[in-house]
């Protein structure tokens, strides 16, 4: 009797534990694309697994096919298997593979994961040899492709995160006067005035919308938008100049947060504590709100077809009219150290080919929807009108924060801080101080 009871309890505990210990790894690896990273290569033939995040057109893994074909024409002994991963569950999928000793050979993503996560954990191969003789990649990109002086990422493309407005709604509300259509910039005062004009038009029934804009803070997805909005309003930075502290509680950032809180209270700006960027983008595409804070060419290509209006890309408003935008990417490739030199060499060859080959590289850059990391490649979108606004935004690129120590942990603190300020009316200085204290504690690891 007692033994049975003990057994029954042990079974209940085991059922619970097995969920956490197994980690659901089976679900996340698509069938037929099991990485072969840990298997040593035999003879001259090598099979590489390339984990590709859903960046722009690479959401469809078939986009890799022409690039792989071109690579195989020169390297017939190398077989490339694409493992498509999404931002939704890619971290889980890759963590399971890495922890299980089946890390992919190559990962296509940006410095936040490649340098901040994988290089930091000592999982990557030194790619410094690929950088030898490379002179046309700007310092802003090369500096974030390395850790402690060693290159672990080779970049392909880059862009700037910006915002967008519903052009027709602004026109109907008489708010176009507040934007500089040529430079696509506006001042903070203009931004406030435009939101007031939109609200008045909504109240008068001139335009049918629920909100002027929505400060989304339901999750960390797309948090670069809300970061850039806050930092630009009074021209401050997310991290202090010397990188020693997060900066949300600076006088200018607090002023910006107070301005937004006031706008939310007055109804000239909306807030959603359950929306992430994808929800806000959908609301923008649906015409529920008149602006989005999460825009780039990738989102334009994804949502433009759904819109019944002109999504007009804009820089974030700033008090001096000089915006500083966050970098989208730079997206590039890294090589995992799986202990097989033949695979490592083949993987480096593939990385070099994708990022440096003028034909395949341009094809890959265009698939991401962004701009080449190699400045020497010039304007690869010459004559393409839809790209022009995003090319312009690249001129406003600002500092890159995503390699600041404690970055991953602080991202989980930023949106709850916005929830507290915008959703519950918390004191801005107190909430920002709390955020900075916790984020800085994370810097120490």
């Amino acid at each position, binding site marked *: 009797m007692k033994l049975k009871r003990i057994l029954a309890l042990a079974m209940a505990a085991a059922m619970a534990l097995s969920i956490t210990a197994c980690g659901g790894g089976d679900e996340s690896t698509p069938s037929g694309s099991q990485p072969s990273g840990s298997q040593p290569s035999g003879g001259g033939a090598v099979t590489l697994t390339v984990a590709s995040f859903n960046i722009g057109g690479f959401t469809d893994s078939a986009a890799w096919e022409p690039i792989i074909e071109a690579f195989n024409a020169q390297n017939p002994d190398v077989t490339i298997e694409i493992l498509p991963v999404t931002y939704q569950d890619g971290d889980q999928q890759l963590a399971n593979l890495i922890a299980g000793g089946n890390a992919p050979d190559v990962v296509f993503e940006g410095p936040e994961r490649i340098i901040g996560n994988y290089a930091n954990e000592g*999982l990557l191969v030194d790619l410094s040899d690929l950088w030898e003789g490379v002179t046309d990649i700007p310092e802003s990109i090369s500096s974030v492709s390395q850790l402690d002086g060693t290159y672990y990422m080779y970049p392909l493309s880059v862009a700037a995160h910006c915002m967008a407005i519903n052009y027709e709604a602004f026109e109907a509300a008489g708010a176009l006067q507040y934007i500089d259509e040529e430079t696509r910039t506006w001042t903070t005062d203009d931004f406030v005035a435009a939101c007031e004009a939109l609200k008045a038009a909504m109240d008068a029934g001139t335009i049918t919308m629920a909100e002027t804009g929505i400060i989304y803070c339901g999750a960390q997805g797309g948090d670069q938008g809300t970061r850039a909005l806050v930092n630009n309003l009074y021209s401050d930075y997310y991290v202090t100049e010397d990188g020693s502290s997060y900066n949300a509680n600076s006088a200018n950032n607090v002023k910006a947060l107070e301005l937004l809180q006031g706008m939310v209270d007055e109804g000239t700006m909306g807030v959603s504590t359950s929306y992430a960027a994808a929800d806000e983008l959908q609301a923008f595409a649906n015409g529920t709100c008149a602006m989005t804070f999460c825009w780039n060419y990738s989102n334009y290509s994804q949502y433009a077809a759904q819109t019944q209006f002109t999504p007009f890309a804009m820089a974030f408003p700033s008090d001096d009219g000089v915006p500083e935008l966050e970098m989208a990417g730079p997206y590039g490739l890294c090589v995992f150290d799986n202990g097989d030199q033949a695979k490592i060499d083949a993987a480096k060859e593939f990385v070099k080919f994708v990022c440096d080959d003028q034909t395949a590289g341009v094809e890959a850059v265009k698939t991401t929807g962004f701009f080449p990391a190699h400045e020497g490649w010039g304007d690869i979108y010459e004559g393409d009108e839809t790209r022009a606004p995003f090319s312009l935004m690249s001129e406003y690129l600002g500092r890159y924060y995503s390699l600041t120590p404690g970055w991953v942990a602080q991202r989980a603190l930023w949106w709850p801080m916005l929830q507290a300020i915008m959703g519950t009316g918390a004191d801005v200085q107190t909430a920002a101080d709390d955020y900075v204290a916790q984020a800085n504690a994370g810097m120490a690891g």
Partner: protein
Amino acid sequence: MEQNTAAAVKPKRAKKPSQTSGMSRALVRRETISAYCFLAPALVFFVAFVVIPMFICVFYSLFDYSLGGINGFVGLDNYIQLFQDPVFHKGLINTIIIVLVAVPAVTAFSLWVGSAIYRMNAFTRSFFRCVFYLPVVTGSVAITVVWKWILDPYNGILNQLIGTNGYNWLGEGKTALACIILILFTTSIGQPIVLYVAALGNVDNSIIEAAQVDGATKLQVFWKIKWPAIMPTTLYVLVITTINSFQCFALIQLMTRGGPMNATMTIMYQVYDSAYRLYDLGYANAIGVILAIIIAIFSAIQFKVAKTD
């Protein structure tokens, strides 16, 4: 002498009749071997995928374990950190609220629906079973997409219906957890209803008729005859629903990601968050161990209350 008398007076313990009495030793051995052979496949899977991971989980919880591998033995540090973590406290409270609300609600509602439909004709009974089972077989993603549409602050049908346009059901701390419990409820009742319909259908009708002849009321028939008869089913429903409620994860990941301001944070979601976003695998394992202990305690209470092993 006294002792001898006492021993003589004390009745001899009745020998329990052996289940194998009358069988030869060889037959018993053969049957035992056969039984173990039948058990073996399930046992292998159970050991490989449940018992061993369980020990691995406990083992890793004692280490600083990140994406790059084990960085050193930390003893109980992960557990100490856990008990000082305000997010864990919030998650624990929310998890217990979910269990305390969802388990009785699911059990009572399932029993009520089961009682109402088990006597219906086969077609109607099957129809209701299908209706209630539909959310179980529908994928979590599809369910959450539909609920997000229903609860959307701007275009949601709920706000349109009750005239609360703009109210953010999932974005307000006061209602977010209630919404999660409601959705969990809808996805949890299918299986218990099917089980209750089957269990109630198996209650011996002759006993019920005899009780009715003796003048038992409907309530007496239910409590004195049906309730004891379906007790094993009730216990199973309680245990399974409790475990499912403790491990409520997909709904939270897809709908609120623990927000707003940790209002829907649960222990299970924190396991995921620690492991796959923060890559703190040792800490995630420690949370998993604590979750398992809590579930075992709750299950023990349920076994005790249900007075069955």
